[in-house]
């Protein structure tokens, strides 16, 4: 931990590729034990930012501290404390799941038990299967197991559930919640807004290399305070009304209908609505 107590701290992070800025002045502050999601369209600078924090890329400007260390100068002891799940990694098709996880366990000073981690990601019945026989979602869960095997304090997940079926995604979310519950800090990038909404304590939206909004998922872009839309079925058809006082309106409607209001809904802008507005309609 550094002086500020942050797991991840970035100030004015800048990265250029051939003179073109991919990241132009990002600030991040992630507390220990927090689940933090980076959202943004392709090419917004998500992966570049995360790879600088992971120590894969050198920055062109700004200050970075990850677990109290500059990733650019970090050594093996620092790597033993982080876990990295890359966006695309496929290898060793002829090894079994257990062989691969067991081999990675040997890199760390105090790894978790391979069988326990394989079980945690839901691959227990595939432990003896060759990796090339796994489905896309199963291979992704193996990637996650390899990121967890060292017992990291900080876990980086770059679009972890791409290619998962809904059941696998929900199982995966449970894994992340369990990790987070045990004090692991998680930095996650994702395309899926429901994933960010359900997992993250805080969300940042990146667009064109800068953070355009950062908040709790429920509060992002002023969602919590935004006007609500009350909608119901009337004699003439569907009626909707935008109001800052939905409770008062519902009470009035209840009085008017003498009880149950037909097909009543009260909605606020979804995370998706806010997100699409923030990134200016591009996706």
């Amino acid at each position, binding site marked *: 931990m550094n002086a500020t107590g942050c797991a991840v701290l970035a100030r004015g992070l800048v990265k250029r590729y051939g003179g073109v800025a991919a990241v132009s002045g990002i600030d991040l502050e992630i507390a220990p034990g927090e689940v933090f999601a980076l959202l943004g369209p392709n090419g917004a600078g998500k992966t570049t930012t995360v790879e600088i924090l992971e120590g*894969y890329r050198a920055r062109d400007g700004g200050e970075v501290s990850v677990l109290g260390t500059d990733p650019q100068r970090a050594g093996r002891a620092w790597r033993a404390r982080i876990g990295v799940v890359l966006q695309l990694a496929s*290898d060793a098709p002829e090894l079994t799941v257990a062989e691969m996880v067991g081999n990675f366990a040997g*890199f760390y000073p*105090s790894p978790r038990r391979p069988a326990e981690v394989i079980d945690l990601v839901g691959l227990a019945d595939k432990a003896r299967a060759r990796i090339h026989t796994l489905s896309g979602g199963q291979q992704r869960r193996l990637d996650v197991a390899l990121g967890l095997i*060292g017992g990291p304090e900080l876990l980086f997940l770059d679009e972890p559930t791409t290619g998962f079926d809904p059941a696998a995604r929900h199982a995966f979310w449970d894994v992340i919640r369990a990790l987070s519950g045990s004090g692991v800090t998680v930095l996650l990038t994702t395309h899926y807004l429901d994933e960010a909404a359900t997992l993250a304590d805080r969300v940042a939206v990146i667009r064109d290399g800068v953070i355009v909004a950062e908040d709790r998922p429920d509060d992002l872009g002023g969602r919590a305070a935004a006007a609500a839309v009350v909608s119901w079925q009337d004699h003439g058809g569907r009626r909707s009304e935008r109001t800052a006082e939905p409770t008062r309106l519902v009470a009035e409607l209840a009085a008017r209908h003498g009880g149950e209001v037909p097909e009543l809904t009260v909605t606020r802008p979804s995370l998706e609505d806010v997100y699409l507005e923030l990134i200016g309609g591009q996706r």
Partner: protein
Amino acid sequence: MTAGASTAPSVAIGARRAPLPGAWRVGWSRGQVELKAFFRERQSVVFIFAMPAVMLVLLGAIFGKQGAGHGVTIGDLYVAGLIGGGVMATSYQNLGMSIAFERERFTLKRLRGTPMPAAAYFVGKIIQVLVAALAEVAVLLVVGLAFYHLRLPGAAAWWTFAWVFVLGVAACSLLGIAASSVPRSAARNGVAVITFPFVILQFISGVYVPFFLVPAWLRDIASVFPLEWMCRGMRSVFVPQAVALEPGHSWQHGQTALVLSAWIGAGLVLCLTTFHWQNRQDR
């Protein structure tokens, strides 16, 4: 794990004090999985491992009985030549292609994100190459004993075999590691960039065509590269009576050691200056 009820990962701070595992230990475990991966990959075993054996049977069946003079048959020369070529196939070609693929498929990047010592990766590769190359030689010797009147040499010649083998494997492995960085894409031009030059070398260095039949100007070109010296060394071990067919009627062992050592030095410099854990598009 202590209490069965606890699902918390082991993130105890005290556990962090455990020393990082050493490069030799991790390298040994890398060697195990490298060997499993190599021998389970049917394609690599067929093309790198079994092909020289099949070539030896075929070439021997076609030309083997022809005499080359001085009590030497063409078949004798093929045994020694294909041992030299086989050693280069299991070191140069196998390493060059496999590392190029591992870089392209982000295997190297993922390993780099763990506390695995960089040296352990290469220790693992060395173990895999040494075992595969020795197995290759053993197979070719068995073919030679079964189909040709190969006689196993005495102790002094085995000593020659040992140093030619070790220097040859070292030089070709380093060249293979360096060559892995050349193709832009392992899948699309790995064969053209890595395998093609090796095939040409095999034709002019005394593998597919007996060296005394190769025109002098091509022999001069071949003598710049390690393969010719490896084959010459193997001829001195397994077909000692062929010395009369050699350029200068001498095995030139001193020159062989010198050229192979020079390639080890050059290969090491090339590896140290060109090796990357990430491909060009990803730095």
